[in-house]
């Protein structure tokens, strides 16, 4: 792009799990659109899934009319390889395109990302809702992108980093991703969040990032976002990305109050993340009232050493009581296990599987650890003896306590057991018979 341009065309490209659309890009689009300094900016947010060939993604971006001056990607470990490949092709064809990336895969490694990916011009570190409009504004007026707070960018032959940006204090200052009057592109479902941060700080997770601080949207904002999404024609389900949906019973009650009228009309909430140990019959009833049909939870591991290493806790009897309360209420539970957490032996992994299947939750999902940038485990990997692929999605290769072969055999065992567990007659399917 030229040094300074009044009018910019921005493409914010989502590369998401099949069936999902990028919520991050919807936030960023509305942040730019609502920025009074950028009235002439034209934005598009094409969505692709991770199964799409990166060359095809590049083809469709390059085919946009008008051609984008700025192309942005939100990068997570799952889409990073696709994004980097698409960027390489886009830059080869149109070198003047300014490529900016953000997200957990690149934000914590901004300088490394620029060093390793010559096609990337700038990296937004942390939350992008104010950093990206500032960067775009800097491009419009021909300023210095590398001095933008929260941004690391190429400046001539150098890489410059603007000062860090504090977390957004008042989340209501962030423009809603679902403004009134704008149709929500949907296949019948949409994402929402009611707060950011997590009350836990699990060492393998980017969400906690070492802090347990919670920042919530106001109840007015939450109510208007729910109203906006739920009233969209054809909307059948909402996925809340809150790390813990049942943060407190009071909060759950308020959410349930807001969602119940829509649940009565058939809106459903799927795979809501919960702290299962807090769920009793009262909470389960509130979840049902809110339209929740399935929840997702740990335990991730039952090994005491790994729990301590990852700053997690597990009270097996409360966990089982929570699963039982959900099942009594007709809510399906997905139990997640991570294979290869530091401190876990293969025997611990087997104990975790036995615990999860004995709980008979409905679904058990197992996956090997991914050592993600910005997490405590990424920083402490060497000390903890974690050997992992430094290329995304950063799969675990071996640990101090589990050999490469142990991990692979546990993966196939986990997959086999999950498949056998999942293949069953349910009250619904039993109606098929006879």
């Amino acid at each position, binding site marked *: 792009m030229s040094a300074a341009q009044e009018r910019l065309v921005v493409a914010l490209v989502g590369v998401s799990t099949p069936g999902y659309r990028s919520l991050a890009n919807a936030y960023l689009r509305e942040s730019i659109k609502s920025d009074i300094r950028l009235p002439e900016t034209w934005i598009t947010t094409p969505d692709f899934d991770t199964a799409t060939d990166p060359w095809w993604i590049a083809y469709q971006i390059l085919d946009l009319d008008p051609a984008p001056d700025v192309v942005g990607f939100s990068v997570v470990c799952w889409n990073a390889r696709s994004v980097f490949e698409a960027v390489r092709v886009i830059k080869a064809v149109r070198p003047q395109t300014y490529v900016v990336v953000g997200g957990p895969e690149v934000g914590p490694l901004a300088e490394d990302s620029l060093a390793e990916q010559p096609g990337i011009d700038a990296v937004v570190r942390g939350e992008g809702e104010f950093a990206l409009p500032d960067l775009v504004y800097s491009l419009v007026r021909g300023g210095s992108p590398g001095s933008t707070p929260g941004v690391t960018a190429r400046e001539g032959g150098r890489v410059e980093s603007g000062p860090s940006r504090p977390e957004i204090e008042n989340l209501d200052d962030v423009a809603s991703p679902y403004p009134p009057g704008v149709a929500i592109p949907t296949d019948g479902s949409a994402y929402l969040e009611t707060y950011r941060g997590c009350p836990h700080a699990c060492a393998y997770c980017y969400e906690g990032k070492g802090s347990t601080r919670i920042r919530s949207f106001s109840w007015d904002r939450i109510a208007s976002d729910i109203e906006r999404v739920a009233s969209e024609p054809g909307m059948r389900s909402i996925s809340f990305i809150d790390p813990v949906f049942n943060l407190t019973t009071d909060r759950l009650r308020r959410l349930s109050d807001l969602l119940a009228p829509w649940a009565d009309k058939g809106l459903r909430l799927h795979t809501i993340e919960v702290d299962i140990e807090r769920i009793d019959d009262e909470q389960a009833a509130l979840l049902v009232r809110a339209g929740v049909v399935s929840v997702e939870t740990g335990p991730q591991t039952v090994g005491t050493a790994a729990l301590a290493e990852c700053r997690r806790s597990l009270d097996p009897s409360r966990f089982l009581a929570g699963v039982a309360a959900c099942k009594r209420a007709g809510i399906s539970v997905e139990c997640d296990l991570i294979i290869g957490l530091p401190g876990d032996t*293969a025997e611990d*992994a*087997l104990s975790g*599987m*036995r615990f999860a*299947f*004995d709980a*008979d939750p409905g679904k058990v999902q197992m996956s090997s650890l991914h050592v993600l940038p910005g997490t405590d485990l990424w920083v402490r990997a060497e000390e903890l003896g974690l050997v992992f692929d430094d290329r995304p999605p950063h799969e675990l290769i071996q640990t101090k306590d589990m050999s490469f*072969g*142990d991990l*692979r*055999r*546990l993966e*196939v*065992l986990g*997959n*086999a*057991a999950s*498949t*056998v*567990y*999942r*293949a*069953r*007659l*349910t009250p619904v*399917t*039993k109606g*098929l*018979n*006879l």
Partner: protein
Amino acid sequence: MIAFAQIQLGCGETAVCMRCHPERAVSMFPAEQVVAAVGRAAAEWGAGPGPNVSFVGAEPFAHPALVRLVNAAVQAGCERIRLRTDGGALFVGGNAAGVVQAGVRHVELVLLAGDSVTHDGLADRPGLFEAAISGAGAFTEAARVVGEHVSVTGLVRVCRHNAPHLSSAVLALAKAGAVSVLVERAEGFMLPSATLAEALRVATVAGVALHGDGVSPFSAEPWTVREVAV
């Protein structure tokens, strides 16, 4: 982890090595007896996922009352119903769709080797290998059509005649969609550890959990078996 109650349908296991068992005689238990065993298995089921039953002991598609037996398992509240089969009948007519419709969610496919010449020769059943592989495919396809989750697992009975074919049998089962394979040694047969180690490597790379006597401890016990007398 996940237990199955094994219910004998009769005598004369399906797809056995005919060189080891040249005089194999097949007989079926009366349906009433099997139904009663299913009822007991379900009634006595303790904690954990289930009740789950696995029909073994004779080729299920040769049992004249298979539909009735599966229906009895459904009526008894069984969540997982498994057939141990040589797979030959699964590809015939609407059998695959029929058993899925009836409530079968698991098929344990028995192979003796990973190629038709060896398998069919040892089983003394020309055409059985191809039918078995096609049958497993028909079963998963029938489930996909009605949106049901099913699983295919495998069983390889190893004796001195087919031991060198263990790995190829595992690979064939993997290609047929099996997520796990049980290795069962013929009575008194010592399976060379190198053969087992090779089969474990092949299975792991193919994404199959190998289990059974003497297999690596992390591959053992994806599910346990409870014997129920008929």
